[in-house]
């Protein structure tokens, strides 16, 4: 082996090695992509991930601590009658609660302790809000008490005492709810190492409020008893004094959900009970009236609709006779809201419609006369009210400069024994129809203009070429006319590649073997060759026989060529035999055409 061979051998070996190295990657030409190597069983490839540096604990834990701490402040404010401060704190609480709830949802942590905390926090807020409302009502009652205390009309004082009793029961009920919820809330909070001291204090303060309300109400009851005794003493001395009526009240069932029916009933005893008007008060508001029957009993059905969830109280009144106070509770049902959006023709507003339903044990029930809030790009813009069948519709205006908006409908559940719900977000393209039409017109005009210009250019170019060709043809025609049947000498068949006798012989062989079409094509090939030579035109492969013949249209041999093509087509397309009554018409036509084209026929 000489050195040169060895050198080439080394190169060959190296080439083989490189080929072997590359072969495993031959099927995937992209040798490396980060996405394709994003993870293994041990770890993720950070380079294939997006850097977000998200530290949500820093946001969430302080928020949760705030909830626990501010509960204490709010309850203290209520205790010391700083209702405005408590209201402001509650507003802030609600705002942070919304932020926290969104975080829990966005982090997909609804099933965690944070999800539990979110639920407990909502209940905590509701209890605080209720406590504030009840205390404001109680404060009003205290003012009225002072006002009515010195008046002679004892019925006014009765109403104060009953209102007070109602509020006492309500606040007591709220307290037991708050205490029980707080226990759960603190347990969750302690698990994630939050300080619950102030929240525990809030439960104690709430208890103190209940105790104060109790004391206040006991005083009112004592005062009422004193007034009753005075009234009884006075009435005993009167000969036509009113009989001593007693009024009872009960509710069945004492719990319910949205769209349930409750039945309030009771009995009036003493005196003449028939036909007396009894008025039912729910949450200290007059609900309805009815008359007692001959036995003194009365009934008032109550359909649960627009009333908040939780504890409620009721009592009935017949003239100056008050019933006992009863409590009933309403559980919150799930709701479902949907939304459909359509852009108005001017593109400045979006027509929204949808329906709100409650999912109760009785099935899906439409929620009527309920407020539905529409948010555009996360900002609450409009509030609609549902019809009796739970449907709502209306339109919202959209920012003029926006091309696309995200719309969502929500129901807060406030004032109903229903939970809140949100519809799916609907993305709407808000381009104005006028703008769209204008865009289409301008676009169409542009297409027409440029299309027309292009067409004009093509036509102009063609015309120029036609004119040139026409001039050439005219000169050729003039020449043809002048030379009659002569073919221009410059295009003499000097370049002919075939010999007619060979063609004829080959033709005969093909014909005798029954291959008529091939035989005909064999003859035609020579004619086409002649036509190319004479016309100087190079025909494309797809050009038909007639198209080729037209290249010498107007010249003397054209007719003979056409006659051949006629026979040729009869054989090719018509399947006719070229030999008819012992005479080969195709061959004759070929010889004549070839002769006319100036070839020498043997």
């Amino acid at each position, binding site marked *: 082996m000489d050195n040169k061979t060895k050198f080439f051998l080394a190169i060959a070996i*190296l080439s083989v090695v490189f080929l072997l190295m590359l072969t495993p990657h031959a099927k995937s030409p992209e040798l490396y992509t980060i996405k394709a190597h994003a993870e293994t069983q*041990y*770890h993720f490839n950070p380079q294939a*991930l997006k*850097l*977000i540096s998200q530290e949500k604990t820093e946001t969430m834990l302080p928020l949760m601590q705030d909830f626990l701490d501010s509960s204490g402040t709010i309850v203290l404010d209520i205790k010391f009658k700083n209702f405005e401060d408590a209201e402001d704190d509650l507003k802030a609480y609600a705002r942070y609660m919304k932020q926290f709830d969104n975080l829990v949802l966005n*982090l997909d942590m609804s*099933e*965690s302790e944070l999800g539990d905390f979110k639920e407990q926090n909502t209940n905590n807020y509701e209890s605080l809000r209720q406590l504030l409302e009840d205390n404001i009502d109680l404060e009003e009652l205290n003012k009225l008490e002072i006002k009515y205390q010195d008046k002679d009309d004892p019925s006014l004082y009765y109403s104060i005492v009953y209102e007070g009793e109602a509020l006492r029961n309500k606040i007591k009920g709220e307290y037991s709810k708050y205490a029980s919820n707080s226990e759960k809330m603190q347990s969750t909070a302690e698990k994630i190492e939050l300080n619950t001291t102030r929240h525990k204090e809030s439960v104690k303060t709430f208890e103190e409020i209940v105790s104060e309300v109790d004391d206040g109400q006991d005083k009112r009851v004592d005062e009422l008893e004193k007034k009753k005794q005075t009234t009884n003493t006075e009435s005993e001395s009167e000969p036509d004094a009113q009989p001593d009526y007693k009024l009872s009240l009960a509710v069945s069932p004492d719990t319910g959900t949205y769209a349930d029916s409750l039945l309030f009933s009771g009995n009036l005893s003493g005196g003449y009970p028939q036909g007396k008007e009894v008025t039912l008060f729910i949450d200290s508001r007059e609900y309805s009236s009815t008359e007692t029957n001959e036995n003194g009993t009365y009934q008032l059905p109550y359909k649960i609709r627009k009333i908040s969830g939780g504890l409620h109280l009721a009592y009935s009144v017949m003239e100056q006779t008050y019933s006992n106070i009863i409590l009933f509770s309403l559980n919150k049902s799930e709701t479902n809201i949907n939304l459909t959006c359509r852009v108005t023709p001017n593109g400045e507003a979006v027509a929204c419609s949808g329906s709100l339903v409650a999912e109760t044990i009785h099935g899906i029930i439409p929620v009527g006369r309920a407020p539905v809030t529409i948010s555009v790009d996360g900002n609450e813009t409009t509030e609609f009210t549902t019809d009796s069948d739970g449907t709502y519709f209306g339109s919202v205006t959209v920012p003029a400069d926006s091309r696309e908006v995200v719309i969502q409908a929500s129901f807060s559940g406030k004032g109903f024994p229903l939970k809140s719900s949100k519809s799916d977000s609907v993305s709407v393209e808000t381009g104005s129809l006028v703008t769209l039409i204008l865009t289409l017109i301008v676009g169409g005009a542009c297409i027409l203009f440029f299309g027309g210009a292009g067409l004009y250019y093509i036509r102009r170019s063609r015309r120029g070429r036609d004119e040139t060709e026409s001039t050439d043809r005219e000169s050729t025609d003039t020449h043809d006319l002048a030379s009659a049947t002569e073919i221009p000498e410059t295009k003499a068949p000097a370049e002919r590649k075939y010999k007619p006798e060979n063609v004829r012989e080959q033709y005969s062989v093909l014909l005798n073997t029954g291959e008529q079409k091939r035989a005909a094509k064999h003859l035609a090939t020579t004619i086409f060759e002649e036509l190319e030579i004479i016309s100087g035109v190079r025909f494309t492969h797809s050009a038909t026989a007639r198209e080729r013949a037209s290249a010498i249209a107007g010249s003397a041999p054209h007719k003979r060529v056409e006659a051949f093509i006629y026979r040729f087509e009869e054989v090719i397309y018509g399947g006719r035999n070229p030999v008819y009554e012992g005479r080969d018409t195709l061959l004759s036509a070929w010889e004549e055409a070839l002769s006319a084209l100036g070839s020498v026929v043997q």
Partner: protein
Amino acid sequence: MNYGRWIAVILIVISLMIISAHFSQTSLEYSRYNTQWNGTSVFADMVEDVGGKFLYDYKDLNSEANTTLLIIAPDKEFSEEETGILREFVHGGGHLFIADENGVSNGLLHTIGSTMSVVPGNVTSVDMEYNEPSLVICYTKGNATVINGVETIVLNCPSYVSGGEALITSSILSWDDENGNNRIDKSESLSEYPVFVHESIGEGIIFLLSDPSIFINGMNVERGKRDNKQFIQNILTQDKHLIVDQSGSQTAGSDGILSLMNRMKQNTILKIAVITAAVFSLLYAVNRKII
């Protein structure tokens, strides 16, 4: 030799360099010969930069004072003999640093007398450096030289540790994502998971990190604002002497020709044989005027 030959020789040398570079690499997880994102080649360079040594046999382990021995991603149970040597090392005042997420080192830890152990898991958190909850941001606690200047680090699919004194933990909003769905379910609970702990044993200290991924090349790229680099630097420089285990660690992983080459490098007789063969081949080529 004419110019053509010179060019040919240069081409052959370049080709041989490319081939040797190709065969001196691997794609094995944690391997220091793996230059891709899941290898530890960058870390191996850092070890060499600080004068660290690689340990191929525990019999060669000197129980010098002021020494840190790193066992990263152990891939086999430790033998009785190895455990004995390591016990002696720790009790004698050495610092043993183990980065393990599968619990392979638990037997060793127990035998040495440590209460610490790795709990294989999938610590996931809302505090994440990348858009993947398994890349958990963890926070330092307490005082120790090894976490000086370190506030937060990012770990990559860590397990967690029980026992010992926690030096680095996940945030409280973390959970062991057992079903790997990246979200917390009812059966999973939020907790602060210790990921780096230490414990004094005899005269020495054992450090236990539940995620060896912190040493891979992909985590050594300057992205984000965590103190991973400082943490690794502390590990490498906390003692005067640094030894990195290559006997039972995945960082020593090699396969194919690379494995043969590595074995050859560790065997003196083979090394001499190969060098002799190469010298003789060269002499032969010059003598026969091949080059």
